[in-house]
């Protein structure tokens, strides 16, 4: 923190405040990044606890622990917390920490908005979690909030709606900040096509957020007025249409899944070249593929609702656009493999998680392709096959990339190396247990087990038991991560500035830990080598 004293800018950073006030009033990108990441970790464990309750109940047939209504609440809250509380804030946290350092800027473009966008989140999630103690229970209609079912929610309903509004406002503010930072704060010489891919994927994510979250806000506002103010947007009785909600929701919902995964592509594209000691293959095609995926994400939404009874032409259109996403996604995977080819790899934990990501995310992509084929989706839809699919892309996809990124930059953030042995244990335990957890769910879905049920026919008993054992293992393994993080913050082997042998990019030219304000002087344009490294 020695840099702080010499810092002479007029930003209202909170370095002068101490204790809790420092964190409440901070406008520093690293402080806010830390807050986001810690918040996300807390939410990851709250959502994870709910997942443990779900897997515990599904351990064997019959209802042992919870009532069906509470089970539905767990399913609903688990999804909302993991999506809006764990993964999205984690990406914003990474963006806050890394983007100014990657583009050679002193801080984010809008430091006060930055503070504000973080501190909305604890309020939003306190509101959401408080519904667990309300008459009628927490929301139990699924995170997708389909009417008319969601309108049967008890006192929790307005809390759900406003919590979603707040989460949305926070994400939009975060996105505006990232986009403004990248557009206006780049160091001289940092042209767009020299940006690290993490920055690129985040700009595109930012635009997706700005384009899709307001649509969600509109949809939930309509739900609110339908319930309390006599409108009938989604009520057939009043001339509305419940299916219309699904169209509006998924118009937001599909871009949302790319919001969760695009920054992961960016992180993996930073890690693989580093540990392969070889430039990223096809930098520009990576950028274009990301753009293509983002564009396609707006014209595939109805593949989430093939069974609502669409006209044939609609089903065909959405099938074609959906399977088309496989092309740019394939380009990315091939590029990563090509980056590894004829390289000189080592396998530190970030690399292990990144490799795990490539393989397991691709498996999730395969099941995604299968799901995109409309006639077969008439079978897969709303079964555990879907559950397996989106957990492969979100847990072994997004979460693995988050872990990879955390290990990759933790030495930079804290100035200490993490404990490599424990971290390797964390990886191997995670990767084994997560497959024991989710792979059998493919079989369950194919054999006919619907999702979102608290109890199941006995022919599904075996795989559910396997899956629950895997779930417990995965849950426990994550405690190891907390231990590693705490140990790393408190001390450990001193990290060098470069940290990794093959590391390239502006963030590695700063000290470990970096100064409070990243680049108070713009870096030498000569040192900006370009995103493909």
């Amino acid at each position, binding site marked *: 923190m020695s840099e702080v004293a010499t810092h002479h800018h007029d930003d209202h950073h909170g370095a002068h405040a101490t204790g809790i006030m420092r964190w409440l009033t901070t406008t520093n990108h690293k402080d806010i990044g830390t807050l986001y990441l810690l918040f996300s970790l807390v939410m990851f464990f709250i959502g994870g606890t709910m997942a443990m309750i779900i897997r515990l109940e599904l351990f064997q047939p*019959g209802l042992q622990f919870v009532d069906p209504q509470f089970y539905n609440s767990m399913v609903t809250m688990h999804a909302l917390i993991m999506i809006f509380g764990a993964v999205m804030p984690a990406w914003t946290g990474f963006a806050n920490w890394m983007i100014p350092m990657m583009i050679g800027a002193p801080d984010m473009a809008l430091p006060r908005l930055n503070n504000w966008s973080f501190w909305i989140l604890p309020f939003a999630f306190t509101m959401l979690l408080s519904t667990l103690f309300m008459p009628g229970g927490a929301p139990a209609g699924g995170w997708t909030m389909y009417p008319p079912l969601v309108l049967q929610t008890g006192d929790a309903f307005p809390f759900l709606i406003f919590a979603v509004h707040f989460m949305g406002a926070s994400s939009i503010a975060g996105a505006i900040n990232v986009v403004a930072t990248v557009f206006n704060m780049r160091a001289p010489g940092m042209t767009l096509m020299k940006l690290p891919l993490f920055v690129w994927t985040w700009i595109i994510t930012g635009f997706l957020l700005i384009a899709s979250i307001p649509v969600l806000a509109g949809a939930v506002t309509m739900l609110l007025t339908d319930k309390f103010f006599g409108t009938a947007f989604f009520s057939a*009785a009043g001339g509305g249409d419940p299916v219309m909600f699904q169209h509006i929701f998924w118009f937001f919902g599909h871009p949302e899944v790319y919001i969760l995964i695009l920054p992961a592509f960016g992180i993996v594209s930073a890690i693989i070249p580093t540990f392969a000691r070889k430039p990223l293959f096809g930098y520009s095609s990576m950028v274009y593929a990301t753009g293509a995926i983002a564009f396609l994400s707006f014209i595939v939404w109805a593949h989430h609702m093939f069974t609502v*009874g669409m006209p044939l032409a609609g089903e065909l259109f959405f099938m074609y656009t959906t399977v088309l996403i496989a092309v740019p996604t394939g380009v990315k995977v091939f590029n990563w493999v090509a980056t590894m080819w004829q390289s000189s790899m080592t396998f530190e934990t970030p690399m292990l998680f990144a490799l795990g990501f490539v393989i397991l995310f691709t498996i999730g992509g395969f099941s995604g392709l299968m799901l995109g084929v409309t006639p077969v989706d008439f079978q897969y839809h709303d079964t555990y096959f879907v559950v397996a699919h989106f957990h492969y892309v979100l847990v072994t996809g997004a979460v693995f990339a988050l872990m990879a990124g955390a290990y990759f930059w933790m030495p930079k953030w804290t100035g200490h190396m993490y404990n490599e042995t424990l971290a390797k244990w964390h990886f191997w335990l995670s990767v084994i247990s997560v497959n024991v957890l989710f792979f059998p769910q493919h079989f369950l879905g194919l054999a006919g087990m619907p999702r979102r049920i608290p109890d199941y026919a006995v022919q599904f008993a*075996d795989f559910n038991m396997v899956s629950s054992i895997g779930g417990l293992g995965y849950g426990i393994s994550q405690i190891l991560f907390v231990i590693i993080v705490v140990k790393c913050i408190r001390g450990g082997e001193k990290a060098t500035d470069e940290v990794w042998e093959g590391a390239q990019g502006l963030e590695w030219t700063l000290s470990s830990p970096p100064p409070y304000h990243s680049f108070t002087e713009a870096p030498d344009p000569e040192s900006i080598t370009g995103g493909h490294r």
Partner: protein
Amino acid sequence: MNLLSKNIFISLILALIPAACFADWELNLPRGVTPFSQDIYDLHMYVLWIVCAIGVVVFGAMFYSIFVHRKSRGAKAANWHHSTKVEVLWTVIPFAILIAVAVPATKSLIMMEDVSNADMTIKVTGYQWKWHYDYIGEDVSFYSTIHKDSNIARQRGAELDPFDVDHYLRDVDNYLVVPTNKKIRFLTTAGDVIHAWWVPALGWKRDAIPGFINESWALIQEPGVYRGQCAELCGKDHGFMPIVVEAVPEADYLAWIAKKTEEKALVINDSKALDQMNSIVLTEAKKINSGE
């Protein structure tokens, strides 16, 4: 390598525990008993093999690289990072594969959406948490709810073990009886929230949406009892509204319809005075209105 052997040991343990307990390992989509279900089973296997093949190639290259191009084996990193030829190739090839998937998929879909020339129509209405079936053109309609044994065993702290119940959570009081080898048109709708009617052996599920009717069809080629359940989250007891379809030869079906029609008439005669009056009034009103 100590680490690796430990991991293998753990995964083996994990794999063995449940295998020792039970032996029901259903892995794949059922082939089903309708032309459509068999079509999509083939399509499912076709796409599955395609993605497996892609997986073998991609992961093969990746693992080869991981084993050979590692620093510990003295591999030196090359410096190339671009090849337009290769990039075009791996854009075009997946595109071609997708076309090979889309063509049969389109054919199946067109077949599925052709509901014309059906031999009979059954209206399926979802309610929280039961199904109502209405044979259009026949005087047969009834509710179908979860079988009482399943309903007892599914309660928390139930004495009855789910494993001791026949078809736990997959049995109902009234089966939906249908003829084999007839094109049956299903109209799905709902009376409260959205449900989805799904029998895997028929090859599809269709949402039941309040206020709207959805059409689908099935032609069951083999007699038998086919089980399914609601597939769209519909509230507390979403997991407890099973579907049982019994497909019988046409003659048996007609006999069943006749029996049901007769039963219904008997029920009307036997039921409480109020119900009786109601239905008579309704029947009379019907006659008056239809000008008989």
